[in-house]
């Protein structure tokens, strides 16, 4: 195929323990380390491997976000993507609007395959790929742990609750990446230098002319309820006694 489009979202790094702002209006992100959503990194790695094995000729990474998301797109270019598109917006658009914006890009770029992460680790929604596939009227294969391309079809192995499932889809299609699809490569310094010369186009979200989805309001943020402080026991006997006291044995 000519082209694979990969979605990259800028999110709070997975190692950061996030905190709710004291007034409950959101989550503290000032001065917090930001990264590519780990599942999107896996999506990109898969696209790169497909290209490296001759299955695609160009990898385009796309992000919806503030201009700061350039950093994540540059990292994607350093990993090996050929070109980047940033759909700029100052406010965090709802998922449906994002999917509509991505559809605009899909219509312009005409990729043979779109790969995105199965979920973003900030809002944990796990919706974008499926919404894009629905709006596009094309197949979706979520939670992919293996992609086997075969001409204008693909067999996707999916991680599901009871085990594994394989489905066959016609291309173009949207695939969402699960953890075990691959292990993303590390970026090397020379690649970072090279990535600076690769094209990164910005398009204002508003210019895409997409209709905003019916808005779900986020009224307040709070920390989860804490569990009560536990006890430490010295040995197995202590553990057994403690379990018996709680009526668990």
């Amino acid at each position, binding site marked *: 195929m000519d082209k694979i489009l990969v979605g990259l979202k800028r999110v709070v790094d997975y190692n950061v323990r996030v905190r709710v702002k004291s007034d409950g209006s959101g989550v503290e992100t000032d001065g917090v380390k930001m990264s590519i959503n780990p599942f999107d990194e896996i999506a990109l790695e898969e696209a790169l491997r497909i290209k490296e094995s001759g299955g695609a000729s160009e990898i385009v990474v796309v992000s919806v976000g503030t201009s700061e998301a350039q950093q994540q797109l540059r990292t994607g270019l350093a990993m090996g993507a050929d070109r980047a598109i940033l759909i700029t917006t100052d406010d965090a658009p709802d998922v449906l609007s994002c999917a509509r914006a991505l559809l605009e890009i899909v219509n312009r770029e005409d990729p043979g395959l779109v790969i995105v992460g199965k979920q973003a680790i900030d809002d944990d929604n796990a919706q974008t790929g*499926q919404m894009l596939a*629905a709006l596009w009227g094309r197949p979706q294969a979520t939670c992919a742990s293996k992609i086997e391309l075969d001409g204008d079809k693909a067999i996707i192995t999916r991680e599901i609750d*009871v*085990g*594994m*499932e394989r489905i066959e889809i016609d291309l173009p299609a949207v695939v969402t990446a699960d953890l075990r699809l691959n292990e993303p490569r590390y970026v090397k310094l020379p690649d970072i230098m090279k990535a600076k010369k690769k094209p990164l186009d910005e398009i204002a979200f508003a210019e895409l002319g997409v209709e905003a989805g019916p808005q779900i309001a*986020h009224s307040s943020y*709070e920390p989860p309820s804490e569990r009560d402080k536990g006890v430490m026991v010295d040995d197995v006997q202590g553990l057994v006694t403690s379990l018996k006291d709680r009526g668990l044995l």
Partner: protein
Amino acid sequence: MSRILVIAEHDGSTLNASIAKTVACAAQIENAEIDVLVLADAAGPIAAEAASLASVSRVLTIESESNAHPLAALLAPQIVAAAQNYTHVFGPSTTFGKDLMPRVAALLGVNQISDIMSVAGSHEFKRPIYAGNVVVTLSAPADVIVVATVRTASYKAVATGNSAPIESISVDADLPTHTRFVDAQAGSSDRPDLQTAAVVVAGGRALGSVENFDLIYTLADKLGAGVGASRAAVDAGYVANELQVGQTGKIIAPDLYIAIGISGAIQHLTGIKDAGTIVAINKDEEAPIFEVADIGLAGDLFTVVPELTEALG
């Protein structure tokens, strides 16, 4: 009044346990009429199970060969057609529901709410974000249909004993041919299902090998428990992927969870926040798992676990 359509997950013959919990969430909405929709090849026994759930008003079935396997691309247009007179469409936040419901929402032109953990009103819900480290309150617009998944670990199954009427319906929907089922491989185990087991014993990277993981199975069998694992244990190939507990694995709420050789990364902890009692066995006294454990035992699992198995008789 709210009219809620719950989409039934099933394996072709039995109703998934998540549905009784999804109905429990729907029943928290005041003045709600709850229907369950079964899309299947042959709906009979599944529909009968759904009809026995308390709070269910009606069970609707759409039977067709194309519904033999749960392919979101085929189910979604039928659900959209069936949902016309409803105010809400709910599914479980299992891999089935997470795959399907966003597709339904996009076709209906609305946003979707993932992982409802509590209901504050007919259009107001709480859900976890950031691997469960933050809880956000959401209000959905009242003039459009609410499409949502329910975080089943937050709910207890509704009672059974009901006998709601079952109606076969037909819908006018164009079904695509671009997506086809090939095969599925279910982990075979005689042990209790991880998602519904009252007791779960889980092992982490510290187990070190497939063989050593037997320590976990032996203890689990003594306790009649289900078995779980951390991502590190799954990635290392000690156990199958469907045993992963956490943000990107299963979210579970057993009465007793025993974490063995698991450090307690936030991505793991989010999967066990609703467990009744958490026991941690770890040789590192500083391991974060001890911050959430109700009972902690600092020690080497290779001596502690055999001793514990022995002590249980």
